[in-house]
């Protein structure tokens, strides 16, 4: 059932909720490209069983009611997930999905329809449905179709469909074994190995033709430990647009070690004190602060409508001079990277905040047109079942002038937050939260008592202005983050150097 929401949230893969199942075999139906990613547009055409003629005709139908613009989005996705629960790899989830969607724009109005059967007749029929949004005279021409040259931000050697289930099970067994031998307090383990491939082909009435192959993998390791009758669970996960070769022995051992260490460390942790205090964010996934405090508020759809707290702040100072924030689709093999967005704009790096000044929103086609700008490659969609909207990719802060040591030493009393599960924001009021699974108290300039299970709440512009120190140790998140907006989920990443927020509200105990 549909739910209306402007509560936009971010979730970590480690939260331990089972994936409804992800896709193993390629569908048998389509002509498969050879080994490796499809090399040219011809391979995408033959995969989806279309040609330029059919595409052109469908676009013409889409514009036949007077639309300004139309695009076709073909998608095939397949994913596999193998689960090991309490030492047995006893289930696998395999999903595949195929379809195409037609979008028609008239000003900022969108008509959208899709079909799961890719045939010229069905494509005509959904194009007619989507076309109706326009309902005005005159017809725009479809420009000559031309392939768009794209970069390759996620080169891989082995496609996931060429990897046996046995190989996946061996990795699960290895990590499970490493976890169990690390600590006798481990009582139960849950591991989940997933891989995913997405093939997309985009054709627009402005003549853009682009195909992309997007690999993804994620390995979740979770466990429950028991000490003196008390149980705690935690975990760790790794995710990237990578292939099987990425999982070296060292990487798998690192995954096992982190999952166990993060769990048993909780036995020493206590709830945090309640109230306002300085919070130091560890380098890495703490970039969740940027995603919630400013990222969503900088998505141009909200600004075009004037309903983001950042709507009136373009080119104004929002943070100290040493704060620069980007949203980047070009990081090699990183989870949120895209060679092309889901409406045909090449992946790129967008500067949101430069030396403390707000510089650019994140645009899709509709918002870029509204502002008279070029799209920034942020038009993304969950699947062919949805039209695109402005979305983040990899959002991170650049290095600053301070060091980790200076930041900790400068803090008489506060929290050092180093592991995160999820966050949420209300983009109009600017209020946002993020959940800290584990961290430490800072007392007299030193890390002391471990703390856990703390929600932190603040207001975006207020917190940005309170970033008083930024270190030089930028790190991107290693885990699999998924962002939800308007009922659509997309993979993203984030990063940050160690940085200090001088005051923010920490949920804890009143002592």
């Amino acid at each position, binding site marked *: 059932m549909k739910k209306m929401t402007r509560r936009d949230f971010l979730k970590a893969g480690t939260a331990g909720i089972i994936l409804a199942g992800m896709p193993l075999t390629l569908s048998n139906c389509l002509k498969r490209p050879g080994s490796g990613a499809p090399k040219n547009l011809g391979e995408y055409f033959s995969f989806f069983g279309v040609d330029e003629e059919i595409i052109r005709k469908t676009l013409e139908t889409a514009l036949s009611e007077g639309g300004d613009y139309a695009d076709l989005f073909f998608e095939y996705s397949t994913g596999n997930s193998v689960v090991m629960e309490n030492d047995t790899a*006893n289930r696998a989830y395999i999903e595949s*999905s195929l379809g195409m969607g037609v979008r028609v724009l008239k000003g900022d109005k969108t*008509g959208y329809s899709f079909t799961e059967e890719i045939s010229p007749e069905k494509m005509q029929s959904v194009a007619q449905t989507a076309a109706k949004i326009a309902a005005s005279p005159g017809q725009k021409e479809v420009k000559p179709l031309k392939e768009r040259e794209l970069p390759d931000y996620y080169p891989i050697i082995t496609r996931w469909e060429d990897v046996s289930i046995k190989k996946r099970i061996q990795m699960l067994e290895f990590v499970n074994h490493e976890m169990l031998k690390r600590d006798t307090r481990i009582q139960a383990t849950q591991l989940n190995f997933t891989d995913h491939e997405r093939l997309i082909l985009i054709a627009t009435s402005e003549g853009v033709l682009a195909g992309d192959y997007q690999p993804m993998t994620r390995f979740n390791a979770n466990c429950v430990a028991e000490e003196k009758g008390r149980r705690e*669970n935690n975990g760790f996960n790794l995710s990237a647009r990578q292939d099987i070769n990425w999982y070296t022995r060292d990487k798998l051992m690192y995954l096992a070690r982190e999952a166990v260490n993060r769990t048993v460390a909780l036995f020493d942790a206590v709830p945090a004190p*309640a109230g306002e205090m300085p919070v130091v964010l560890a380098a890495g996934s703490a970039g969740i602060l940027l995603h919630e405090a400013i990222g969503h508020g900088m998505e141009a759809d909200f600004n075009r409508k004037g309903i983001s707290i950042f709507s009136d702040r373009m080119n104004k100072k929002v943070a100290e001079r040493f704060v620069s924030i980007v949203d980047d689709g070009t990081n090699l093999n990183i989870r949120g990277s895209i060679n092309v967005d889901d409406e045909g704009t090449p992946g790129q790096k967008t500067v949101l905040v430069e030396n403390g000044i707000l510089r650019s929103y994140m645009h899709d086609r509709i918002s870029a047109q509204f502002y008279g700008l070029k799209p920034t490659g942020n038009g993304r969609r969950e699947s062919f079942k949805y039209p695109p909207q402005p979305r983040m990719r990899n959002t991170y802060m650049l290095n600053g002038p301070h060091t980790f040591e200076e930041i900790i030493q400068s803090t008489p009393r506060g929290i050092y937050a180093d592991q995160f599960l999820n966050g949420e924001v209300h983009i109009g009021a600017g209020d946002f939260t993020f959940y800290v699974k584990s961290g430490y108290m800072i007392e007299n300039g030193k890390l002391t008592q471990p703390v856990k*299970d703390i929600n932190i709440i603040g207001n975006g512009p207020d917190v940005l202005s309170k970033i008083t120190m930024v270190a030089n140790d930028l790190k991107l998140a290693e885990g699999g983050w998924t962002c939800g907006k308007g009922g659509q989920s997309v993979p993203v990443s984030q990063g940050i150097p160690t940085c200090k927020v001088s005051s923010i509200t920490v949920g804890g105990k009143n002592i």
Partner: protein
Amino acid sequence: MQSQKNYANMLKWVEQKALKLGADAIRSVLRVNSGFSMSQRDDSIEKMESSIQSSLRVEIFKDNRYSYHSTNDLNQDRLESFLDKAVSMTSYLEKDEARRLPDPALYPTSMPEVDLDLVDPTLSSMTIERKKKLLNRLVQGAYAKNRQLISVTGEFWNGHSHVYGRASNGFSGTVERTYVGMSVEVSIDEPGGRKPEDWKSINALHFEDLWEPEAVAAEAVQRVEQKLGAEKIASGIKTMVVENTAVARLLYPIIGALTGRSLYQKRSFLDGMMDRKVGSDLFTLRNDPFIPRGLGSRYFDEEGIRAQKRTLFEKGTLKHYFIDSYYGNKLGMEPTSGSFSNLILNPGSLSPEELIKNVSEGVYVTQFIGGNSNSNTGDFSYGVMGHEIRNGKLVRPVTEINISGNYLELMKSLHAAGNDLYTFSSFRMPTLVFKNVDFAGK
């Protein structure tokens, strides 16, 4: 679109094929859904979407091995090859004796006695013009209440779904349901640059159960107006009143802790608590699948197990877990059902206003934002928004504050329940009052 009989026959064919290919048993589910949605922002239609989608899910059981496969490609030739791969792949997984279809004695035996009334036959003939009018009333309804709003977006949706289920040891069932809903999101300007937003969304199976669009709009506008000037309050231990629509989000982790999966994985704070008193006398929570037109109503669950009413907590005492057949086998427990249908927390006799009147110092929580909980210890921490209560009155809107605590303590601290069960959700909850909650603010 294929006829219903064709779909049922397709599942029969899928089953026969899989068995022939070497599966010992198979469960399959075919979902077909047609949906429509339309949104209007201010004066003009913003988006119109329509679709028909289908998906087939098969679960293969072979030599006590198990795998799950889904596809949206229903072409018969390709399905054959899909099944071939599904069956042969299952052999590579590890054996698990607990993997088998449920005991057929758990499947429905006769036609249900209750008519759940899950289909509104009038919806399919509702014209786009009529939907546009409703949508416009929704948006204009909001502006009629407040001219100062900076943006209003209304959405209307409806759909019709058929689910066909079949298991090779004797289950076969079909569920047809319609759904319809509308929502409105409103934003307002506040001095200082904040632009508080709020929304109201209602869902139902039948059109006539929805509110008039103007009433939905009025509720959204009232909610956003009440946020104007919201500020932090001081930290402290206070009484918390939770509005009926917000209760589901607070109580959801308790449902998670009741599942066989979390018990088997040793990650439930309710492990070992059967027949123990864990909540206050007011904490009576029931699962009722048989509410006519209920959003979670059903005749059988995902495994085909026939639906039954159960009391999960009786006056604070834990009486039932959610056990599906797999985790039932693992844990040596009788399967109940692995999931909930409609959850009802026993209402009280006072209205929300009367409940608030009885609070001298507290917070009326109308919305949760972010936060999470620890499934082993029951510790939680959430962001909240709402109103400060002083001497029985709402005195000012509050935001940017957190609550934290522990579910085992929270259930015991349930002090009162309202008479206002919220029916536009499968969580049918009244307004609740909890004593001694930790609030973190200034």
